[in-house]
């Protein structure tokens, strides 16, 4: 006997598979019977074959590696910088007040438009892409860390203070754990921003990476390659998101009640 919730899940998954299959079939058959032009939209079977080739020859791996390196470096450095500045401004309210309009003005800049400038400053290599990724991540993390810091319960701080905790202990035992839910939220959005930053940087100027693959293929009118690269990017994003979910489940275990 299947329980109601399992049955429900099976129904949902069946519908999802059905809808995807129908859409892909329309695409595939539409191109095959010349209803759409393969030049513009390629076709699922071609994309699938291209993916097989890319992975079988192994030529895609260096590109994945370089894009991931840019995105993850940007993510790590941007997160550390954002958390640090967020906590410092949270701690020193007057400084935060002075800097508030400046930060808001900087935040208002569409960060990706800075891409060409970073390329000019840091060259065509990995450094410029890391910076583009980092700057988006920085602001997202900064706001999470700042809000998290402001929402730390003064009652919890008092509790450990009364036990003789030092400033460092208060930071490690109360402030950082209190901010974890905020930081994980920031991390989830930062992930997308970091990957996007790296790809856009590669669009502007690069000679490798998944973003470069997209722009290069599109310059040669190779729609199939463009779309297969996009499939790879989506898969990477899904994997990274899943990692954050795992982290969530581990770090926020205490939020789950047994009931």
């Amino acid at each position, binding site marked *: 006997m299947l329980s109601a919730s399992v049955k429900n899940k099976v129904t949902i998954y069946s519908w999802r598979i059905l809808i995807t299959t129908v859409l892909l079939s329309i695409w595939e058959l539409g191109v095959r019977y010349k209803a759409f032009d393969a030049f513009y939209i390629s076709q699922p079977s071609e994309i699938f074959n291209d993916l097989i080739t890319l992975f079988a020859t192994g030529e895609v791996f260096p590109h994945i590696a370089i894009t991931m390196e840019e995105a993850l470096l940007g993510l790590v450095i941007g997160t550390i910088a954002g958390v640090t500045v967020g906590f410092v401004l949270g701690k020193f309210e007057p400084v935060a007040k002075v800097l508030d309009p400046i930060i808001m003005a900087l935040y208002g800049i569409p960060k990706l438009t800075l891409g060409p400038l970073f390329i000019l400053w840091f060259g065509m290599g990995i450094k410029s892409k890391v910076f583009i990724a980092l700057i988006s991540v920085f602001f997202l993390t900064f706001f999470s860390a700042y809000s998290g810091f402001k929402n730390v319960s003064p009652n919890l701080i008092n509790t450990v203070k*009364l036990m003789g905790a030092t400033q460092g202990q208060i930071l490690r*035992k109360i402030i950082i754990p209190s901010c974890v839910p905020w930081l994980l939220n920031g991390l989830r959005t930062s992930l997308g921003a970091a990957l996007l930053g790296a790809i856009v940087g590669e669009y502007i100027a690069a000679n490798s990476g998944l973003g470069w693959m997209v722009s290069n293929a599109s310059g040669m009118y190779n729609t199939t390659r463009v779309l297969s690269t996009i499939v790879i990017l989506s898969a990477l994003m899904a994997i990274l998101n899943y990692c954050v979910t795992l982290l969530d489940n581990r770090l926020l*275990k*205490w939020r789950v009640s047994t009931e």
Partner: protein
Amino acid sequence: MSNILMLKPLANLVEKDSKLWVRDLNQVFTATNGKTTAAIKNVNLQIADQEFVAIVGPSGCGKSTLLNILAGLIKPSKGEVLLDGITINGISSRIGYMSQADSLLPWRTVLDNVAIGLEIKGVPKAERNSVARELIARTGLKGFEDSYPSELSGGMRKRVAIIRILALDPEILFMDEPFGALDVLTKEMLQDDILKLWQETKKTIVFVTHDLTEAITLADRVVLMTSRPSTIKSEYNIPLERPRSALETRFDPQFVELQKLIWNDLRTEVIMAKGGE
């Protein structure tokens, strides 16, 4: 009745006897617009070693402010607090403080919550965990070591908060309306815990509450405070026999009489506090 009622027992205490000596305490708060409010005015209080004192007063009368000063969290505007004859200057590890709010760390298990004080002191993990485990077992929380506070009932959370303080073995305990938001039965259970705790450890306890019944049930002496600016209105000795039980003590004829007496005194303050709002 005069034999059970002894106002101003200060005369019984010589300076060297008092564990805690509050001398001419005043606290003024200044708002951002420069307006000042007197929260506490001329409070004098002497508490003997092993004494259990309850401080009762209308809501918002500055009881918590007083306790915060005693614990060294706030510096008084005027006056001083002496612990064993030495002025309290900031936080001391000889003092245990239990606040009104639920102050368990939600991301820590029961065991890690109980051990946190020792962790801050730098006690090695094995040692602090064994102290914590023993306290947990003695409080009837065995089996919940690895539970998170969100998985416990309100009463269990309070028990964890109490043993978290006991893990540090303070000489004196300050409790700020610890059982305020609990249902009657849970409250009674925890009051019995506190009675037992005092019976076993004879720690000096200062217990702030707005619940007169609770104060009489637990304390050796009940101190009544006035509404703002808060000062001590009167003091009553509670000569009920120990060991007490939270439930049975309440039906003691002496208890009923004391309650009537103190309640009449307290009522005028409550009415004044309401009128002042």
